[in-house]
């Protein structure tokens, strides 16, 4: 017998995998990786950096597009088009629905990442064999670490998307909210750093503003901790301790979001 949660996860996965947008996203990132082949020859020495940059950016962009175009629709469309009835008329609780959906989407993203990682590995291998002299400071391990941490970022981002899907009634608002959280999460660290250094210099920031900054810093997810692309490009080693702590960060944050999503969703009326 197949457990019902597994069926739900695969249902969401299958529905997402067959989304037509997926082909476009895949082609786009393959095209971008292919452009590394030509693009790299325009640089002088740091060919390894440029090719890693392009490959990692292609994977990241694909992950983001997947999140903002496919996974946003998977949940909002479910509610909009009443396909959710076909899940909830089965013996599923609302929380199980949320977790099943989330894990289904994560399965989709992990699969996409595996395929893209394979493609970009082949791509990098080809570039590397062509310009081997310029790949002295290159490490496959650091490259894969960067992909892993990007995946952690998407775990968190999808939890955010899911959270907003449960409170809003339209996928557009969900898109707007999660996109702004993404942008804010990517930049908050730099903004805080900038404000703190500036306020130290001119004492311009008042106490209240400082507290507000502190609070937002703690509420907003700091997504820039997952960005190891520049490090990977220069093969700067990242410690396993750091990887472990960002893994925990992503997991804990996602769990908090999903639990609150379940609580909110439990009270939601599905008209």
């Amino acid at each position, binding site marked *: 017998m197949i457990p019902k949660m597994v069926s*739900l996860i695969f249902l969401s996965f299958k529905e997402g995998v067959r989304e037509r947008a997926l082909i476009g996203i895949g082609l786009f990132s393959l095209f971008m990786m292919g452009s590394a082949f030509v693009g790299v020859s325009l640089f002088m020495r740091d060919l390894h950096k440029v090719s890693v940059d392009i490959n990692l950016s292609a994977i990241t962009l694909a992950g983001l597009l997947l999140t903002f175009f496919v996974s946003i629709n998977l949940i909002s469309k479910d509610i909009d088009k009443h396909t959710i009835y076909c899940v909830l008329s089965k013996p599923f609780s609302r929380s199980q629905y949320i977790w099943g959906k989330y894990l289904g989407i994560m399965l989709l993203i992990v699969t996409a990442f595996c395929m893209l990682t394979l493609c970009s590995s082949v791509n990098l291998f080809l570039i590397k064999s062509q310009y081997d002299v310029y790949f002295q400071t290159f490490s496959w391990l650091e490259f894969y670490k960067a992909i892993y941490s990007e995946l952690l970022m998407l775990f968190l981002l999808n939890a955010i998307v899911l959270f907003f899907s449960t409170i809003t009634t339209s996928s557009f608002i969900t898109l707007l909210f999660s996109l702004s959280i993404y942008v804010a999460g990517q930049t908050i660290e730099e903004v805080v750093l900038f404000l703190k250094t500036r306020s130290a210099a001119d004492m311009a920031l008042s106490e209240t503003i400082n507290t507000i900054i502190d609070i937002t810093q703690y509420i907003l997810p700091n997504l820039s901790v997952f960005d190891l692309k520049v490090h990977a490009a220069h093969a700067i080693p990242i410690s396993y301790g750091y990887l472990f702590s960002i893994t925990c960060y992503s997991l804990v944050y996602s769990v908090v979001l999903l639990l609150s999503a379940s609580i909110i969703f439990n009270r939601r009326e599905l008209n």
Partner: protein
Amino acid sequence: MPEIRIKNISKTYVSEFKREKKIAVENFSLTIHSAESFGIIGRNGAGKSTTIKMIMGFIKPDKGDIIIDDKKPSDPDSRLNVGYLPENPYFYDNLSAEELLKFSSYTSGLDKKTAEKRINTLLNQVGLYAVRKQRLRTYSKGMTQRVGICFALIHDPDIIILDEPMSGLDPFGRKMVIDLIEDLKKRGKTILFCSHILNDVERICDRVAIMDSGTLKGIFTKQHVLENEGMEKLFLTLVREK
């Protein structure tokens, strides 16, 4: 015994900006006995769908209780023995009928072999076996409706709840659904369904409830309906045009 008890439920919809209130169901009580087929009829917006959604647990009543098979709708297990067909069913576009029905059977605890057998029999019965591997996005409204019926019946539940089961079907489809329901009746299933097509209700139901503007106007047995010049006249006397 599988039965559905509804006690004094009320539901008021509040619009998004908390200004307008719309009473959907008010002080509604009903008991559907085991092995009975029960129809709720009423105009569009009379509160039929709302009642059914409350039974399924999609919406929570403001007041009152609902008990299905000794369980509350908030308990997921209350739906273990229930087959549900939503109004205007819409399923995952990118799945095939077969995949969707597999999901339905696995989540209700069927094993792989039984599921396959049930899926094939049901799809043959509703005439969709040939197109079972096609994506649902290519299905017409009537085909989707039939898939929905299979989805509800796949695990052979004891309680069957159908929201407008005849909508979008051609005469052949209608006959097929009626045959299906009659077959289920014979096998002692509890059936609750709502419709605004009076003839259908008249043909299948043991008992009928008439609803208007969220309130119950009356419950009648089939015999009573037949003795009193049919459903239509009864309905028109109870529900006045606004």
